[in-house]
Protein backbone atom coordinates (compact mmCIF):
# COMPACT_ATOMS: atom_id res chain seq x y z
CA UNK A 1 0.00 0.00 0.00
CA UNK A 2 1.25 3.48 -0.90
CA UNK A 3 1.66 6.33 1.61
CA UNK A 4 -1.08 8.40 -0.08
CA UNK A 5 -3.65 5.64 0.31
CA UNK A 6 -2.72 5.27 3.98
CA UNK A 7 -3.20 9.00 4.53
CA UNK A 8 -6.65 8.81 2.97
CA UNK A 9 -7.74 6.13 5.42
CA UNK A 10 -5.87 7.09 8.59
CA UNK A 11 -8.80 8.54 10.52
CA UNK A 12 -11.04 5.59 9.61
CA UNK A 13 -8.21 3.25 10.65
CA UNK A 14 -7.94 4.97 14.06
CA UNK A 15 -11.71 4.68 14.56
CA UNK A 16 -11.66 1.01 13.48
CA UNK A 17 -14.11 1.53 10.65
CA UNK A 18 -12.18 -0.31 7.91
CA UNK A 19 -12.49 -3.87 6.71
CA UNK A 20 -10.11 -6.39 8.28
CA UNK A 21 -8.10 -6.68 5.02
CA UNK A 22 -7.58 -2.93 4.74
CA UNK A 23 -6.77 -2.64 8.45
CA UNK A 24 -4.07 -5.27 8.10
CA UNK A 25 -2.61 -3.60 5.01
CA UNK A 26 -2.36 -0.25 6.78
CA UNK A 27 -0.91 -1.86 9.89
CA UNK A 28 1.83 -3.50 7.83
CA UNK A 29 2.58 -0.24 6.07
CA UNK A 30 2.86 1.65 9.36
CA UNK A 31 5.31 -0.92 10.65
CA UNK A 32 7.57 -0.25 7.69
CA UNK A 33 7.10 3.48 6.95
CA UNK A 34 8.61 5.84 9.50
CA UNK A 35 6.96 8.99 8.07
CA UNK A 36 3.49 7.49 8.05
CA UNK A 37 3.97 6.17 11.57
CA UNK A 38 4.83 9.71 12.77
CA UNK A 39 1.74 11.04 11.03
CA UNK A 40 -0.38 8.28 12.57
CA UNK A 41 0.88 9.18 16.08
CA UNK A 42 0.13 12.85 15.60
CA UNK A 43 -3.29 12.12 14.15
CA UNK A 44 -4.17 9.76 17.02
CA UNK A 45 -2.99 12.36 19.54
CA UNK A 46 -5.14 15.10 18.06
CA UNK A 47 -8.15 12.90 17.44
CA UNK A 48 -8.17 11.53 20.98
CA UNK A 49 -7.29 14.82 22.67
CA UNK A 50 -10.75 16.15 21.91
CA UNK A 51 -12.39 13.21 23.66
CA UNK A 52 -10.52 13.73 26.92
CA UNK A 53 -12.11 17.06 27.72
CA UNK A 54 -15.52 16.68 29.29
CA UNK A 55 -17.24 18.94 31.75
CA UNK A 56 -18.38 16.94 34.78
CA UNK A 57 -21.77 17.19 36.53
CA UNK A 58 -22.31 20.71 37.92
CA UNK A 59 -24.03 20.58 41.35
CA UNK A 60 -25.30 24.19 41.28
CA UNK A 61 -26.34 24.28 37.68
CA UNK A 62 -30.09 24.08 38.41
CA UNK A 63 -29.84 27.15 40.69
CA UNK A 64 -28.25 29.00 37.80
CA UNK A 65 -31.01 27.92 35.41
CA UNK A 66 -33.75 28.80 37.93
CA UNK A 67 -32.18 32.22 38.42
CA UNK A 68 -32.05 32.73 34.66
CA UNK A 69 -35.70 31.75 34.38
CA UNK A 70 -36.60 34.20 37.15
CA UNK A 71 -34.69 37.01 35.43
CA UNK A 72 -36.45 36.21 32.18
CA UNK A 73 -39.84 36.44 33.86
CA UNK A 74 -38.91 39.79 35.37
CA UNK A 75 -37.88 41.04 31.95
CA UNK A 76 -41.16 39.90 30.38
CA UNK A 77 -43.34 42.89 29.48
CA UNK A 78 -46.65 43.35 31.35
CA UNK A 79 -49.92 42.26 29.72
CA UNK A 80 -50.78 45.89 28.98
CA UNK A 81 -47.42 46.45 27.29
CA UNK A 82 -47.58 43.12 25.48
CA UNK A 83 -51.09 43.58 24.07
CA UNK A 84 -51.09 47.38 24.11
CA UNK A 85 -49.95 47.73 20.57
CA UNK A 86 -52.17 44.96 19.27
CA UNK A 87 -55.46 45.92 20.92
CA UNK A 88 -55.18 49.32 22.54
CA UNK A 89 -53.67 51.20 19.61
CA UNK A 90 -56.39 50.33 17.04
CA UNK A 91 -59.05 50.97 19.68
CA UNK A 92 -57.67 54.47 20.28
CA UNK A 93 -57.61 55.08 16.51
CA UNK A 94 -61.27 54.08 16.21
CA UNK A 95 -62.31 56.25 19.15
CA UNK A 96 -60.48 59.29 17.73
CA UNK A 97 -61.95 58.64 14.27
CA UNK A 98 -65.48 58.26 15.70
CA UNK A 99 -65.06 61.42 17.75
CA UNK A 100 -63.90 63.29 14.65
CA UNK A 101 -66.90 62.13 12.64
CA UNK A 102 -69.29 63.02 15.47
CA UNK A 103 -67.81 66.50 15.86
CA UNK A 104 -67.94 66.98 12.08
CA UNK A 105 -71.60 65.99 11.92
CA UNK A 106 -72.46 68.25 14.85
CA UNK A 107 -70.66 71.17 13.27
CA UNK A 108 -72.42 70.54 9.94
CA UNK A 109 -75.84 70.53 11.59
CA UNK A 110 -74.98 73.78 13.38
CA UNK A 111 -74.17 75.59 10.11
CA UNK A 112 -77.35 74.32 8.48
CA UNK A 113 -79.63 75.56 11.27
CA UNK A 114 -77.82 78.92 11.26
CA UNK A 115 -78.46 79.19 7.52
CA UNK A 116 -82.17 78.47 8.14
CA UNK A 117 -82.29 81.15 10.83
CA UNK A 118 -80.59 83.76 8.63
CA UNK A 119 -82.89 82.84 5.68
CA UNK A 120 -85.92 83.46 7.82
CA UNK A 121 -84.46 86.73 9.01
CA UNK A 122 -83.93 87.92 5.41
CA UNK A 123 -87.48 87.09 4.35
CA UNK A 124 -88.93 88.80 7.42
CA UNK A 125 -86.78 91.89 6.75
CA UNK A 126 -88.11 92.14 3.16
CA UNK A 127 -91.66 91.92 4.42
CA UNK A 128 -91.00 94.73 6.85
CA UNK A 129 -89.45 96.91 4.11
CA UNK A 130 -92.32 96.25 1.74
CA UNK A 131 -94.86 97.05 4.45
CA UNK A 132 -92.97 100.24 5.26
CA UNK A 133 -92.80 101.24 1.61
CA UNK A 134 -96.52 100.59 1.16
CA UNK A 135 -97.43 102.64 4.17
CA UNK A 136 -95.31 105.59 3.04
CA UNK A 137 -96.35 105.44 -0.65
CA UNK A 138 -92.75 104.89 -1.70
CA UNK A 139 -93.92 102.27 -4.14
CA UNK A 140 -96.92 104.43 -4.97
CA UNK A 141 -96.51 103.76 -8.68
CA UNK A 142 -98.06 100.37 -8.20
CA UNK A 143 -101.17 102.04 -6.85
CA UNK A 144 -101.45 104.68 -9.66
CA UNK A 145 -102.42 102.39 -12.54
CA UNK A 146 -103.21 105.21 -15.01
CA UNK A 147 -99.87 106.91 -14.61
CA UNK A 148 -98.10 103.69 -14.97
CA UNK A 149 -99.90 102.93 -18.23
CA UNK A 150 -99.02 106.35 -19.63
CA UNK A 151 -95.43 105.82 -18.69
CA UNK A 152 -95.23 102.53 -20.54
CA UNK A 153 -96.92 104.07 -23.61
CA UNK A 154 -94.37 106.87 -23.58
CA UNK A 155 -91.56 104.36 -23.43
CA UNK A 156 -92.92 102.33 -26.37
CA UNK A 157 -93.29 105.52 -28.48
CA UNK A 158 -89.66 106.42 -27.82
CA UNK A 159 -88.62 102.95 -28.94
CA UNK A 160 -90.64 103.32 -32.20
CA UNK A 161 -88.98 106.62 -33.00
CA UNK A 162 -85.61 105.20 -32.44
CA UNK A 163 -86.35 102.35 -34.81
CA UNK A 164 -87.37 104.66 -37.56
Amino acid at each position, binding site marked *: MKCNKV*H*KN*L*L*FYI*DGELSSDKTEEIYNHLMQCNECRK*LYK*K*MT*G*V*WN*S*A*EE*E*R*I*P*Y*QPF*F*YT*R*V*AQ*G*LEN*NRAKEPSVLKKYGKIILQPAIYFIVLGLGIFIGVQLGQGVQSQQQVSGNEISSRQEIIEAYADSNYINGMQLEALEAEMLTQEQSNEKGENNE
Partner: protein
Amino acid sequence: MTDQQIVREIKHGNEEAFRELVEKNQEMIINVCYSFVHDREDAMDIAQEVFIKAYNSIDKFQGKSKLSSWLYRIAVNKSLNFIRDHKRKNILSSLDLLFDNSPDISDKIEDDSENTEESFENEEMKAALKKTINELPKKQKVALTLNKFEELSYKEIAEVMDISVSETGVLINRAKKQLQKKLIKTFKNQ
Protein backbone atom coordinates in the same frame (compact mmCIF):
# COMPACT_ATOMS: atom_id res chain seq x y z
CA MET B 1 -40.43 10.01 36.55
CA THR B 2 -40.40 9.04 32.88
CA ASP B 3 -39.77 11.65 30.19
CA GLN B 4 -43.47 11.76 29.34
CA GLN B 5 -44.40 12.34 32.98
CA ILE B 6 -41.75 15.06 33.28
CA VAL B 7 -43.12 16.85 30.22
CA ARG B 8 -46.71 16.57 31.46
CA GLU B 9 -45.78 17.88 34.90
CA ILE B 10 -43.80 20.81 33.50
CA LYS B 11 -46.78 21.70 31.32
CA HIS B 12 -48.83 21.87 34.54
CA GLY B 13 -46.25 24.22 36.04
CA ASN B 14 -44.51 21.72 38.34
CA GLU B 15 -41.06 23.22 39.01
CA GLU B 16 -39.81 20.02 40.66
CA ALA B 17 -40.31 18.21 37.37
CA PHE B 18 -38.30 20.91 35.65
CA ARG B 19 -35.53 20.48 38.21
CA GLU B 20 -35.50 16.76 37.40
CA LEU B 21 -35.27 17.51 33.68
CA VAL B 22 -32.28 19.79 34.28
CA GLU B 23 -30.49 17.42 36.65
CA LYS B 24 -31.03 14.47 34.35
CA ASN B 25 -29.77 16.18 31.19
CA GLN B 26 -27.40 18.95 32.29
CA GLU B 27 -24.16 17.03 31.77
CA MET B 28 -25.18 15.94 28.30
CA ILE B 29 -26.35 19.41 27.23
CA ILE B 30 -23.38 21.29 28.70
CA ASN B 31 -20.99 18.95 26.89
CA VAL B 32 -22.83 19.22 23.57
CA CYS B 33 -22.50 22.99 23.80
CA TYR B 34 -18.88 22.63 24.89
CA SER B 35 -18.03 20.42 21.93
CA PHE B 36 -19.23 23.20 19.64
CA VAL B 37 -17.93 26.34 21.37
CA HIS B 38 -14.84 24.88 23.15
CA ASP B 39 -15.18 27.22 26.09
CA ARG B 40 -16.37 26.08 29.51
CA GLU B 41 -18.15 29.28 30.61
CA ASP B 42 -19.74 29.88 27.20
CA ALA B 43 -20.96 26.28 27.20
CA MET B 44 -22.56 26.75 30.64
CA ASP B 45 -24.25 29.96 29.52
CA ILE B 46 -25.62 28.35 26.38
CA ALA B 47 -26.79 25.28 28.32
CA GLN B 48 -28.64 27.60 30.71
CA GLU B 49 -30.36 29.22 27.73
CA VAL B 50 -31.23 25.77 26.35
CA PHE B 51 -33.13 24.79 29.51
CA ILE B 52 -34.88 28.16 29.73
CA LYS B 53 -35.94 27.78 26.10
CA ALA B 54 -37.11 24.21 26.80
CA TYR B 55 -39.17 25.39 29.77
CA ASN B 56 -40.77 28.23 27.84
CA SER B 57 -41.60 26.15 24.78
CA ILE B 58 -42.50 22.85 26.44
CA ASP B 59 -46.03 23.20 24.99
CA LYS B 60 -44.52 22.84 21.52
CA PHE B 61 -42.99 19.47 22.37
CA GLN B 62 -45.39 16.92 20.91
CA GLY B 63 -43.59 13.76 21.97
CA LYS B 64 -42.91 12.58 18.42
CA SER B 65 -39.18 12.38 19.15
CA LYS B 66 -37.33 11.58 22.36
CA LEU B 67 -37.08 14.35 24.93
CA SER B 68 -33.28 14.12 24.85
CA SER B 69 -33.29 14.52 21.04
CA TRP B 70 -35.45 17.61 21.38
CA LEU B 71 -33.04 19.05 23.96
CA TYR B 72 -30.07 18.15 21.73
CA ARG B 73 -31.70 19.99 18.84
CA ILE B 74 -32.17 23.15 20.93
CA ALA B 75 -28.57 22.87 22.19
CA VAL B 76 -27.15 22.46 18.67
CA ASN B 77 -29.14 25.42 17.34
CA LYS B 78 -28.18 27.64 20.29
CA SER B 79 -24.50 26.67 19.92
CA LEU B 80 -24.47 27.34 16.18
CA ASN B 81 -26.14 30.72 16.75
CA PHE B 82 -23.51 31.50 19.36
CA ILE B 83 -20.67 30.61 16.96
CA ARG B 84 -22.25 32.77 14.24
CA ASP B 85 -22.58 35.76 16.59
CA HIS B 86 -19.08 35.14 17.97
CA LYS B 87 -17.59 35.18 14.47
CA ARG B 88 -19.08 38.62 13.92
CA LYS B 89 -17.61 39.82 17.21
CA ASN B 90 -14.22 38.35 16.31
CA ILE B 91 -14.20 40.20 13.01
CA LEU B 92 -15.02 43.44 14.80
CA SER B 93 -12.39 42.91 17.51
CA SER B 94 -9.73 42.07 14.91
CA LEU B 95 -10.62 45.33 13.19
CA ASP B 96 -10.21 47.07 16.54
CA LEU B 97 -6.76 45.51 16.97
CA LEU B 98 -5.68 46.87 13.61
CA PHE B 99 -6.23 50.41 14.83
CA ASP B 100 -5.23 49.90 18.45
CA ASN B 101 -1.63 49.52 19.70
CA SER B 102 -2.49 48.08 23.08
CA PRO B 103 0.30 46.22 24.90
CA ASP B 104 -1.90 43.15 25.53
CA ILE B 105 -0.75 41.31 22.41
CA SER B 106 2.95 41.49 23.24
CA ASP B 107 2.19 40.42 26.83
CA LYS B 108 0.41 37.38 25.47
CA ILE B 109 3.34 36.40 23.29
CA GLU B 110 5.67 36.63 26.28
CA ASP B 111 3.32 34.44 28.32
CA ASP B 112 3.20 31.88 25.54
CA SER B 113 6.98 31.67 25.31
CA GLU B 114 7.05 30.49 28.91
CA ASN B 115 5.12 27.37 28.05
CA THR B 116 6.99 24.16 27.44
CA GLU B 117 7.40 23.08 23.86
CA GLU B 118 5.42 19.91 24.39
CA SER B 119 2.31 21.51 25.85
CA PHE B 120 2.51 24.21 23.19
CA GLU B 121 2.50 21.55 20.48
CA ASN B 122 -0.38 19.76 22.15
CA GLU B 123 -2.41 22.94 22.42
CA GLU B 124 -1.54 23.77 18.84
CA MET B 125 -2.81 20.40 17.71
CA LYS B 126 -6.06 20.81 19.61
CA ALA B 127 -6.49 24.29 18.19
CA ALA B 128 -5.86 22.91 14.71
CA LEU B 129 -8.54 20.26 15.22
CA LYS B 130 -11.08 22.76 16.55
CA LYS B 131 -10.33 25.16 13.73
CA THR B 132 -10.65 22.43 11.12
CA ILE B 133 -13.95 21.19 12.56
CA ASN B 134 -15.30 24.72 12.67
CA GLU B 135 -14.43 25.16 9.00
CA LEU B 136 -16.55 22.20 7.96
CA PRO B 137 -19.95 22.79 6.35
CA LYS B 138 -22.66 23.26 8.99
CA LYS B 139 -24.41 19.89 8.63
CA GLN B 140 -21.14 17.96 8.52
CA LYS B 141 -19.91 19.79 11.61
CA VAL B 142 -23.08 19.00 13.58
CA ALA B 143 -23.12 15.34 12.55
CA LEU B 144 -19.42 14.81 13.27
CA THR B 145 -19.52 16.65 16.61
CA LEU B 146 -22.50 14.65 17.84
CA ASN B 147 -20.91 11.40 16.68
CA LYS B 148 -17.36 11.99 17.79
CA PHE B 149 -17.73 14.00 20.98
CA GLU B 150 -21.17 12.99 22.17
CA GLU B 151 -20.89 9.43 20.91
CA LEU B 152 -24.43 9.47 19.58
CA SER B 153 -25.46 6.69 17.23
CA TYR B 154 -26.32 7.43 13.61
CA LYS B 155 -29.97 6.88 14.46
CA GLU B 156 -29.88 9.38 17.31
CA ILE B 157 -28.07 11.94 15.17
CA ALA B 158 -30.64 11.45 12.41
CA GLU B 159 -33.40 12.16 14.94
CA VAL B 160 -31.69 15.30 16.26
CA MET B 161 -30.93 16.65 12.79
CA ASP B 162 -34.23 15.53 11.31
CA ILE B 163 -32.55 13.63 8.45
CA SER B 164 -32.32 9.98 7.41
CA VAL B 165 -29.80 7.55 8.93
CA SER B 166 -28.07 7.03 5.58
CA GLU B 167 -27.74 10.79 5.11
CA THR B 168 -26.14 10.96 8.55
CA GLY B 169 -23.59 8.33 7.49
CA VAL B 170 -22.74 10.24 4.33
CA LEU B 171 -22.30 13.50 6.27
CA ILE B 172 -19.97 11.93 8.85
CA ASN B 173 -17.95 10.16 6.18
CA ARG B 174 -17.47 13.37 4.20
CA ALA B 175 -16.62 15.32 7.34
CA LYS B 176 -13.94 12.82 8.34
CA LYS B 177 -12.40 12.81 4.87
CA GLN B 178 -12.20 16.60 4.82
CA LEU B 179 -10.86 16.72 8.35
CA GLN B 180 -8.22 14.09 7.58
CA LYS B 181 -7.08 15.96 4.48
CA LYS B 182 -6.74 19.26 6.32
CA LEU B 183 -5.00 17.77 9.37
CA ILE B 184 -2.43 15.93 7.26
CA LYS B 185 -1.73 19.15 5.39
CA THR B 186 -1.22 20.94 8.72
CA PHE B 187 1.09 18.21 10.05
CA LYS B 188 3.18 18.18 6.87
CA ASN B 189 3.65 21.95 7.09
CA GLN B 190 4.88 21.76 10.69
